[in-house]
């Protein structure tokens, strides 16, 4: 599939050029057109809505970005943190939304596993994946960014694991951005009944302070009895605007362990939504966030129990330095009749400077009687007495702070079962901690 339109911005003429260059089946074009109508009709969110009142996007100039241009001529892959020293079952890499590499071990493709560019795999197997796309797991009418992604996504990643197939090595996907680039990637993960897989999804910029825009969606379906470990590491340059809608549907007896690492971007607004859609579904979410400079990261989680006898456990931990700002809003929603629900959410924040700010807002919406649902949130500074104690035993102040930060994250690292992920996040955070007086 070719995309050869010029860089022209998000306006109707550019969209028509984009569509005509893609030659997609009519059902997919219809989906894109409907999302495009929503994009044109919706305003950018403003600070009057509760969801956006702490996230100021008045400096975002959407018209400075545009639809995917001609493919980038250079294949430059920034250092991939999650894949270091890991034997992979497959990998993909993209730059500015154009997939440049897609590999899958023959052993897995022979068993019907599909992994690679969503664009390319849809062109070959559109009928197989049509039901998943027409379900619109992420509704493009939710806001202008979801609509933009629904209309203009390209490249992207698809993982499909057929019934009963267990992939015993991780798959890795890397999305890169060049300075000023745009990533409109979309991720679709489908595990059929009893399937198992681990997907490591990572983003990064060619320049650490590079600007850019990511507007994307991630849709995950964990079939009955299937098991997925999904890791998303957002490590864009500190000039990137990051807008993401991420949603997983876990069916009867399915298990999802979802780990989020948030280190990069200038401003990130992420909606993470998990639906427990069948009895005995089990979801664990681990969030690791570190912000510095003037970064602003805003995460909005929803754990939606639609069936009884399900378990969900969300743990987010964030450390902040300089003048950075973390926002976390979490909601546990339990539908009527969903008895024996066991749901927990927690968000802890460690403030490393006086100017950093954390807003932590947990919430419950319970419509069933026989449930156990609880939540907690904390925000605090590094304890000077602990630093004094450590310095008395020969550590420098910086070493002491690093040790305290490591201890703070240990609870969430203990839950992450993939060594490379734990090491990558730990190393990245250790490197970022500076000395404070």
């Amino acid at each position, binding site marked *: 599939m070719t995309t050869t339109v010029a860089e022209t911005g998000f306006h109707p003429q550019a969209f028509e050029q984009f569509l005509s260059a893609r030659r997609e089946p009519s059902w997919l074009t219809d989906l894109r057109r409907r999302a495009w109508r929503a994009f044109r009709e919706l305003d950018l969110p403003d*600070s009057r809505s509760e969801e956006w*009142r*702490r996230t*100021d996007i*008045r*400096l975002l100039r959407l018209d400075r970005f545009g639809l995917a241009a001609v493919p980038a001529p250079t294949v430059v892959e920034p250092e991939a943190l999650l894949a270091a020293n890991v034997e992979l079952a497959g990998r993909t890499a993209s730059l500015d939304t154009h997939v440049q590499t897609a590999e899958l071990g023959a052993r897995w493709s022979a068993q019907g596993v599909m992994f690679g560019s969503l664009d390319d795999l849809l062109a070959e197997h559109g009928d197989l994946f049509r039901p998943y796309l027409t379900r619109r797991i992420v509704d493009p009418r939710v806001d202008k960014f979801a609509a933009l992604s629904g209309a203009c996504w390209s490249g992207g990643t698809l993982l499909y694991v057929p019934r009963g197939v267990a992939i015993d090595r991780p798959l890795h996907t890397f999305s890169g951005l060049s300075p000023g680039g745009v990533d409109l990637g979309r991720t679709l993960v489908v595990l059929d009944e009893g399937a198992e897989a681990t997907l490591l999804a990572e983003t990064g910029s060619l320049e650490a302070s590079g600007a850019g825009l990511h507007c994307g969606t991630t849709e995950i379906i964990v079939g009955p009895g299937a098991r997925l470990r999904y890791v998303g590491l957002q490590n864009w340059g500190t000039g990137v605007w990051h807008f993401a809608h991420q949603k997983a549907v876990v069916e009867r007896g399915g298990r999802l362990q979802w780990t989020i690492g948030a280190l990069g971007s200038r401003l990130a607004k992420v909606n993470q939504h998990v639906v427990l859609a069948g009895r005995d579904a089990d979801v664990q979410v681990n969030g690791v966030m570190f912000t510095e400079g*003037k970064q602003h990261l805003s995460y909005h989680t929803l754990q939606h129990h639609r069936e009884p006898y399900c378990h969900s456990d969300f743990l987010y931990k964030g450390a902040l330095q300089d*003048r950075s*700002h973390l926002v976390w809003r979490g909601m546990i929603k339990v539908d009527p009749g969903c008895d024996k629900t066991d749901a927990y959410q927690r968000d802890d924040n460690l403030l490393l400077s006086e*100017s950093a*700010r954390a*807003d932590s807002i947990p919430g419950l919406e319970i419509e069933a009687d026989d449930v156990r649902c609880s939540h907690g949130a904390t925000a605090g500074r590094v304890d000077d007495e602990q630093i004094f104690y450590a310095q008395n035993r020969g550590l420098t102040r910086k070493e002491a702070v690093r040790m305290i930060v490591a201890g703070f994250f240990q609870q969430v690292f203990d839950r992450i079962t993939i060594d490379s992920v734990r090491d990558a996040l730990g190393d990245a955070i250790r490197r970022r901690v500076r000395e404070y007086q």
Partner: protein
Amino acid sequence: MEPHSTSEFVPVCQVSDLPDPGKTVVEVGDRLVALFHVSGTFWALDDLCTHDGGPLAEGELRGYTIICPRHGAQFDVRDGRALTMPATQATVAHEVKVEGDDVLIRLKDG
């Protein structure tokens, strides 16, 4: 530690663009700055309430006091001092000068 300036003065508008008294928001570098015109003098603050991040310039200007539209926190437009709860910390004040009909702002770090 007091914030200090590292940038140059940047023209943001003309004197005649802003009535006296008056307020507006201007974009300087990667920041939104609330610009005030009171009794013949211009003043500039981060357009940011230190209580919950509200947009100060959308609030009511009374003399040298700007009132955050969200929860009523008040700041002195001349130096960014927080005057009332719920704000307890100053918002960053930037340097302003007038050259001819041009109003220029130099950002302070912080």
